[in-house]
């Protein structure tokens, strides 16, 4: 017999262990964003319309990284946990749903801390100038965006079978990467696509991050509103529709 640890700590430890064992999560949340940042940072081939293309690229890639950890990684893992009856089994322990959710949130925060801890130094190495960055506003944007994306990821994960959920999350990731206003500017997208992209959380998060980090937002007030709406609607939808089994 030994001294006790808390249920939350036990669950958090389990979440982090599972995350560390899933190499594809590392690819999705860290390697792809870093590769995009390095490639487009070094080649300057994106039609950004910015004097310094890094001012466009860095906030966009950070938005992409936030989406990958908050939505795709969380959504895929949760979908499989439903499928493997992990959630069902945890449901009859003293853990409880609030602590399960807190463990998930902390796990995402840990991942995002690592993501930002790698992406920002890489961007600085690629001559990104962060002198005028408003870091508190950027953190607010990351938090709001994380809530919106997590709500969306869990909404999908809570309704679909694990395999369909996997395909849906990856498909959405690719779609938003290309058409969501994160690495390709709105004005370079076809008008109807751009109109939709501006209403998506990806485009809104990238835009408010550009405003916060490089004073280059396209329409920051509207983007904050769009992001806020997503951050309210998707968690509510998830709470109403999520199936634990």
């Amino acid at each position, binding site marked *: *017999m*030994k001294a*006790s640890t808390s249920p939350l*700590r*036990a669950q958090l430890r389990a979440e982090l262990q599972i995350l560390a064992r899933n190499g594809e999560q590392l690819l999705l949340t860290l390697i792809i964003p870093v590769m995009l940042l390095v490639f487009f940072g070094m080649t300057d081939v994106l039609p950004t319309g910015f004097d310094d293309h890094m001012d466009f690229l860095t906030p966009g890639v950070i938005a992409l990284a936030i989406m990958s950890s908050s939505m795709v990684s969380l959504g895929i893992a949760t979908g499989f946990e439903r499928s*493997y009856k992990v959630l*069902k*089994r*945890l449901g009859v322990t*003293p853990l409880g749903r609030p602590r399960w959710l807190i463990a998930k949130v902390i796990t995402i925060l840990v991942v995002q801390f690592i993501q930002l801890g790698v992406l920002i130094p890489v961007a600085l190495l690629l001559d990104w100038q962060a002198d005028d960055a408003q870091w508190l506003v950027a953190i607010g944007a990351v938090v709001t965006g994380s809530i919106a994306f997590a709500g969306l990821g869990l909404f999908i994960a809570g309704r679909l079978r694990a395999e369909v959920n996997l395909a849906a999350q990856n498909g959405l990731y690719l779609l938003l990467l290309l058409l969501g206003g994160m690495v390709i500017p709105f004005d370079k997208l076809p008008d109807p696509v751009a109109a939709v992209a501006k209403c998506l959380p990806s485009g809104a998060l990238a835009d408010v991050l550009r405003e916060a980090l490089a004073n280059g937002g396209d329409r920051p007030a509207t983007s904050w509103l769009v992001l806020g709406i997503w951050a309210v609607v998707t968690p509510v939808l998830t709470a109403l529709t999520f199936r634990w089994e």
Partner: protein
Amino acid sequence: MNGDLSPLNDPPSLSRIDRTEPTLVVEQLCVRYGDLLAVDNISFSARAGQVTAVLGPNGAGKTSTIEVCEGIRKASSGQVRVLGLDPVKDRRVLAKKMGVMLQDGGIYPSARAIDVVRQYCGLYASGRDKIAAPEELLDLVGLSERRLSPWRRLSGGEKQRLSLAMALAAQPQIIFLDEPTSGVDVNGRTTIRQIIRRLADQGATIILATHELDEAEKICDRVIIFDKGKVLVEGGLDDVRRARRVVRLRTVRPLDLTDMPDNLAGWLIEDAPCDYSIEDAPQGLIAALAVWLSERGIDVIELRTGMASLEDTFKKLTGGAP
């Protein structure tokens, strides 16, 4: 494998249990899925210190009933009390006293055995001075050598044993086991049965859903047989078997049942060539059968009267295989 079952020694929560009062009470329970009535107005109870087997063919309503008791599923109507608590309303309190083994799954495939058990020991740690030790639990279920193996690399039997270790992490007062020995080899079955028996002897209430009638016969004190959402019979193991008497007859050569007089042929059931049984035989039937066999010079290898086996009882009640 650890033979002394040390993690189960003197669990503090079990010493206070009253063995005279039912710890699980199910009254007029109904579970409905759309138009399907999966559980149809059933009532039964279970006590501490006993292993209660829940038997029934697939789709009989066993798992639905157990999941209502565990608080996983809501009852459509009726009442369930587990350790005096409502499984849904008092979920938080009950979860600390209840161990659960699902029929399958419940573990992330990449999670290592030791990490899973450590996680579950931690989940039950809140507010306690002591928790079960993960390494001892793994040793108890015979998985010490597989402690670093991820769940997906474990055999079917090893997965079941790991799932049992997770249930034991709760140091439970009541434990629900859904097919605990499914896919487990002979040695593993013996270990699991020992653990279950030991837990019951210490005062835990064990609810065991199983298809393995042989297993139920070996370790259970009480039996509840389900079919089509209803409880067909409930009682002590011997009471259930004793309710039906069976005569077994084995002959050296097969009998021609068409040649038999009507008063005999209608009673004889051919279980296998040269192997027959007669259930609830009326007075005089066995004597008449003995005379008939003697007249035809048919040698008898065995003719004995006894209690029906649980399997016989089960087949008779449900009309099929478990």
